[in-house]
């Protein structure tokens, strides 16, 4: 399967948006840890903006940057997250174990795994198809498969947004996510103006080959599974031809050939 990458975004430690991070990702400037942040989604109506938590803020901020200047309402979307809104799920679980605990209706509808996608389509007024995938530590690869399959079956442009945020206690002890991270890619079927790289993907049964010892930037994936997008972001930023191996499951991975345009 093949596609072309146009707009991009990244929000993570020391990566405050694509424009501000491209040089560090390309290795032209040093990368340093800094606390990640994401603004409230300006496009959402005030009521929805108040209801959207940190997870939705990160996902929507990345999606916004990657689609700057595009007709957002027409874009098919894929949202990929392993934890969904862990803060909301954790709060509901706490409530359910309090005597007389009452689940909040808003928290319940925010607990669905496709909440970020729902808020995005409300924010941009889009009726386009959308799918939300999980996938534990293979979730970014699963999102890429869904997005490229959409391209392969006729979609001209697909927004892929991968994101995860920390879980509250006690869930954080059983599902490690140290910091928020989101990355977004606008994928095109054809090599139009503004295409930065071509991606060629092959599914491989079996675990990914042993990689060289990762540096600090690639190590971000240890602290947030959405940061498995980092090597792809780096290859695109550096405009280098590269072959990447992305874990999809314990016994499966994707081979991604990145070619700069």
């Amino acid at each position: 399967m093949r596609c072309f990458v146009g707009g991009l975004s990244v929000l993570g430690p020391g990566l405050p948006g694509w424009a501000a991070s491209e040089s560090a990702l390309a290795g032209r400037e040093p990368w340093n840890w800094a606390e990640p942040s994401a603004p409230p989604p300006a496009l959402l109506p005030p009521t929805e903006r108040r209801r959207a938590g940190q997870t939705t803020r990160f996902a929507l901020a990345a999606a916004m940057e990657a689609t700057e200047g595009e007709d957002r309402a027409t874009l098919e979307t894929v949202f990929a997250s392993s934890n969904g809104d862990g803060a909301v799920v954790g709060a509901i679980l706490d409530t359910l174990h309090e005597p007389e605990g009452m689940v909040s209706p808003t928290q319940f509808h925010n607990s669905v795994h496709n909440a970020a996608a729902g808020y995005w389509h409300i924010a941009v007024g889009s009726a386009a198809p959308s799918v939300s995938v999980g996938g534990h530590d293979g979730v970014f690869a699963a999102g890429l498969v869904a997005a490229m399959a959409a391209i392969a079956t006729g979609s001209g442009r697909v927004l892929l947004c991968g994101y995860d945020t920390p879980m509250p206690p006690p869930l954080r002890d059983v599902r490690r996510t140290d910091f928020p991270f989101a990355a977004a890619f606008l994928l095109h079927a054809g090599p139009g103006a503004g295409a930065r790289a071509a991606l060629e993907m092959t599914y491989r049964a079996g675990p990914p080959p042993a990689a060289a010892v990762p540096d600090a930037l690639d190590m971000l994936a240890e602290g947030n599974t959405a940061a498995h997008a980092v090597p792809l972001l780096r290859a695109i930023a550096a405009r280098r031809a590269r072959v990447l191996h992305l874990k999809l499951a314990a016994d499966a991975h994707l081979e991604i050939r990145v070619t700069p345009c």
Partner: protein
Amino acid sequence: MSQWPLAITAHSVVTALGTGTASLRRALHDRRGGLGPCTFPGAPSGIWTGEVNWVRDVALPPGLTAYDCRNNRLAELCLSADGFADAVAKSRSRHGAGRVAVVLGTSTGGIEETERAYARRPDGRNALPSDFDYARTHDLQALVDYVRARLGLTGPAMVISTACTSGARAIMQAAALMASGMADAAVAGGVDSLCRLTLNGFGALELLSQGPTRPCAADRDGISIGEAAGLLLLERPADAPAGSPLLLGAGASSDGHHMSAPHPTGLGAVSAMRAALAAAGLDAAAVGYVNLHGTGTRANDAMEDHAVHAVFGDAVPCSSTKGWMGHTLGASGAVEAIVATIALEDGLIPGCLGVEAPDPTFRSRVATANTAAPLRHVISNSFGFGGSNCSLVLGRAA
């Protein structure tokens, strides 16, 4: 290059009506529902549910017991029924284990296991018990990992979680993986199990019926939550036995309107149905029966009536089958795809259960009694929170 049609070469289902397709088929013909007063601990009082109580007695096979949770037990019941696992094994030897995809939908996965883990904590202790296995139970991927391991498959794997469209969307996604050349066959469907989060969440939204749900009734008062697993084996028609039911097309859309309230006139629902018909290359007039999402809430059923009327007018009979097994959430799209195959094979339009007459304000042709009809094409709707919509078109073998 058309990705359609695909053949459904095997399927299996578990609902409150029983384990296996025969239990569902018999109940539809006999108009015998499977809902009952809720016995699930920690649920809101006075509600009815579609519980698969015998899930308590299910043991996962040796070597896979780390995956033990209510959701994976439901999956196991389904895999063991209807010769499904054997059919997948045949497909695996035909295509190779790496060419059979697994794409499943679930809204809450194994979160019921986490609820138990929370409850097992001694007083004053916040940390979860050390034997709680998050990745193999709570995590959405646990369902897909379990099914792949159980069936010995190594093809592409994906878990879809789009609330109540998860099962239908997983079937659509599996078809896309096959069309894109990543797989030659796919195990697709949905599994969702009862949990306190869902029961109390829908309770907080005041969307639960105080008796068995009665979709499309004028005095309908909400949902009965059920639990279920529905699995399909999808293969290309050239690899399928003659007479296999067909998945002719699928369509999806977003409302972009509200997180939990449907669009008042069902714009997103209309575009999902039209996209599915376009994928199938069919006019609305070719459809003989619409299996509604029909949750039994005031808002969903009124919206869906608008949408179905916009696409089909009053010409095509429609009904919701949720009166039989409840709203099985992320499994419902897969369960109702199997209802559609039964409707096609038996020439049966199953009218809404427990409903004397449809809401008089509805303009679409709601069936409230079983009717025999020679059906060629059936459309099945699923809608969900977050404004997610998905429709599937199924057909009888040519």
